[in-house]
């Protein structure tokens, strides 16, 4: 292709500079200005985020943000790193939301992160101090008003010297000026805030409950306690009966004198073995993995879940591949009229969004009102989704309905691209139909479809949507102490155990199971790709 014809074929667009860069002004043009504007926005947002990270003392996030921002500025203003200009935005998202989460899963798998162990030791100390707060005997109470700014509730309170301070659950008390107080010392006008009349506080039960549970810290230090109110007009300082000794790393109950010291499991424990509710997370080594395999509560159900996961993924691929290929072979026939319409109807289930199909089948398989029992089983009361084996069958049946069109599409395409001469040679050699299919069509087909079959296996291995939407993992294992059921696959089991949707959380165990899934997928992919290469050599 010559240079001349090419520039004739594609004349410069109207919005592009008509003059070529070689002859015109070589300085920064429109593109540069756009880039400058974009980078200004990026820098502004980045710096705002860095300041926010500084304010909440998230040093790790602050560091990452700063590095990302500096690298971005370098990449887009330096002349050298041209490929990086195109890769960088995608790489950031890939690094933060995929690679980091992968490694973070690995890290969490070796900790006891979960309910009761939710943060650092300092956070656990603060939580313990807050949980244990009581009003001290004979402590003074001060006039107080409830204030509101939009959804945020706070307290304005006058202290013994008449200084008015204001705070919210997020923002500790700070003195505030320009406040008008009534004769009893209660603030009645606070600049920037709406004072909630006392009658309104008392008259509205939800608001009253909110107000009585409101806790406004006196300062950033959890040990100094907080302001609380019982009736919305006076407030008192509540302090913890626990005392934190940073040097000895112990919490002491000032009333009983019991000393809670940290143990290696992330708990504060007294000599008598009493444990504070708030803990922090610590590394526990391979304990989560061990628990998955040996703990009586988990090992049995998880073994069944794992076996079913493999069976489900393999059977889904086999049945849908088989059915799809069969239909493709049958209907890839030029003598057939209306092939196009037939094919369009055949693939309807694939074009219908999968989560809706699963919910639709859930209703159709309902044992009481479902159309399946009504139409095909004369109104019998068959518990498609409540019997362990029928539920497994139903899951496979629905997934077959969902995915055979995919295989029909793929294998039709592959069949049409098979070389005709090989088939002809085989026919001349006297091969029958079955022989030709076995020895020529199928092996040639497998070269292009085997990688897809493996990908499909991996996909169904983690096909959370269909399981969760159709059966919710149920019916539950009888007598098991964990919330798992006979159609649960590993990922839905991880979902149940993790507690991200509520309930008791066990991020450590859930992550350990995720790691096991990752390993399984990795091994399968590696083996499969080697096998595919062998197929290609045929």
């Amino acid at each position: 292709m010559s240079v001349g014809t090419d520039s004739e074929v594609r004349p410069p667009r109207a919005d592009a500079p008509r003059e070529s860069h070689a002859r015109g002004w070589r300085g920064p043009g429109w593109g540069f200005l756009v880039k400058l504007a974009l980078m200004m926005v990026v820098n502004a947002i980045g710096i705002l985020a860095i300041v926010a990270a500084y304010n909440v003392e998230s040093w790790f996030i602050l560091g990452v943000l700063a590095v990302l921002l500096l690298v971005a500025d370098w990449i887009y203003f330096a002349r050298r790193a041209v490929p990086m200009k195109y890769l960088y935005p995608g790489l950031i998202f890939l690094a933060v939301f995929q690679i980091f989460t992968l490694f973070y899963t690995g890290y969490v798998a070796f900790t006891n992160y979960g309910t009761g162990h939710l943060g650092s030791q300092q956070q656990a100390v603060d939580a313990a101090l807050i949980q244990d707060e009581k009003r001290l005997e004979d402590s003074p109470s001060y006039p107080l008003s409830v204030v509101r700014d939009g959804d945020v509730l706070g307290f304005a309170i006058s202290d013994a010297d008449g200084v008015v301070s204001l705070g919210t659950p997020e923002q500790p008390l700070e003195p505030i000026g320009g406040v008008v107080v009534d004769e009893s010392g209660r603030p009645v006008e606070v600049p920037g805030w709406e004072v909630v009349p006392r009658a309104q506080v008392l008259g509205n039960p939800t608001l009253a409950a909110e107000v009585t549970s409101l806790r406004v810290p006196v300062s950033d230090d959890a040990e100094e306690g907080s302001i609380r109110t019982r009736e919305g007009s006076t407030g008192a300082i509540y302090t913890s009966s626990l005392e934190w000794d940073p040097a000895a790393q112990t919490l002491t109950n000032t009333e009983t004198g019991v000393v809670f010291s940290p143990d290696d499991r992330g708990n504060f424990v007294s000599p008598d073995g009493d444990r504070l509710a708030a803990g922090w997370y610590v590394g526990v080594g391979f304990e989560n993995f061990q628990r998955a395999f040996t703990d009586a509560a988990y090992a049995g159900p998880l073994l069944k879940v794992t076996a079913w996961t493999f069976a489900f993924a393999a059977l889904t691929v086999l049945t849908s591949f088989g059915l799809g290929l069969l239909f493709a072979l049958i209907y890839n026939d030029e003598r057939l009229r209306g092939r196009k319409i037939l094919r369009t109807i055949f693939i309807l289930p694939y074009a219908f969004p999968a989560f809706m199909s699963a919910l639709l089948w859930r209703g159709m398989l309902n044992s009481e009102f479902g159309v399946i029992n009504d139409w095909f089983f004369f109104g019998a009361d068959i518990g498609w989704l409540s019997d362990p084996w029928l539920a497994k069958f139903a899951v496979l049946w629905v997934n077959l309905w969902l995915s055979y069109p995919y295989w029909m599409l793929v294998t039709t395409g592959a069949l049409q691209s098979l070389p005709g001469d090989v088939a002809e040679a085989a026919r001349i050699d006297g091969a029958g139909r079955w022989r030709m299919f076995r020895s020529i069509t199928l092996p040639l087909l497998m070269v292009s479809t085997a990688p897809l079959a493996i990908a499909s296996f991996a996909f169904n291995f983690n096909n959370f949507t269909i399981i969760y939407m159709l059966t919710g993992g149920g019916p539950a294992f009888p007598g098991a102490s964990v919330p798992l059921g006979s159609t649960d696959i590993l990922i839905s089991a991880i979902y149940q155990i993790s507690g991200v949707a509520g309930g008791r959380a066990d991020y450590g165990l859930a992550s350990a199971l995720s790691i096991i899934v990752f390993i399984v997928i990795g091994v399968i992919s590696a083996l499969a790709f080697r096998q595919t290469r062998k197929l290609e050599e045929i």
Partner: protein
Amino acid sequence: MSSVSSTTSAQAPATATVERRTPGRRRRWWAEVGWKYPLAAIIVFYAAFPLVYALSAALNPRGSLAGSSSLFSDVGLANFAALGGTAYWTWVTNTLVVCGASAIGAVAMGGAAAYAFSRFRFRGRRASLTTLLIVQMFPQTVAFVAVFLLLNALGEVVPSLGINSKIALICVYLGGALGANTFLMYGYFNTIPMEIDEAARIDGASHAQVFWQLIMPLVVPILAVVGLLAFISSFGDFILARIVLTSEDNWTLAVGMYQWVSNQLTSRWGLFAAGSMIAALPVLVLFLSLQRFIVGGLSAGSVKG
């Protein structure tokens, strides 16, 4: 199969007019072609009856699962009208925002990355391609616990990147944008001759001009396919959307409609059916009309089931 047809049609012309309607030919026609029609009827029933049933339930004004077994016994638009009284349209908007933004982002990032890999020879190119291939094998959904914890931490710094933010969900989806799409686009970019770029370079175009004004218009077909696949995959995602979006007015269709039927399946059946008709019809039409292009994209990488 087609080979058989060519032999029969090759023999046919000599005797065609005479033998067309003889019993022998008819028997052969039945053995080779005819039986496929009754079988097709069975498959059509298997494929379409759940959807026809859903349509009938959507039009049935009674709206509960119990009375919807007889097809089209009672037709009305009550269920569609009732959708207006629910959060359904909010969910539709949310879904369009989240899936649209992540599809556009996926196309932009994937396209830029594919351009870089296809047009530049830089150090670490092979290694990064291999890394991408390995990373994309490990699905993001399995790491959902880590995603949840990460968003919890990010939300303390920037609330719009935390739990219950649509932007956060879009970011999570974009995290998978590079791995899933780069290879699809990389192959397509490679089919565009380098000479085009070189000619433009000689004329003094910068790399940005080459990218935006030359390459991007030429790769529109693959951009459309990737955009559509990204849209469909985020449209169908449940687990990440369920974890990230916690309040009802932020839900996407997948989360919202699950909540409808998981608890009150039997009573909100008509609503669900009507909602699914509205949500699925555009996808259905789009899918069927773009079938040819999507099949290419499917066999090149993405899978649904």
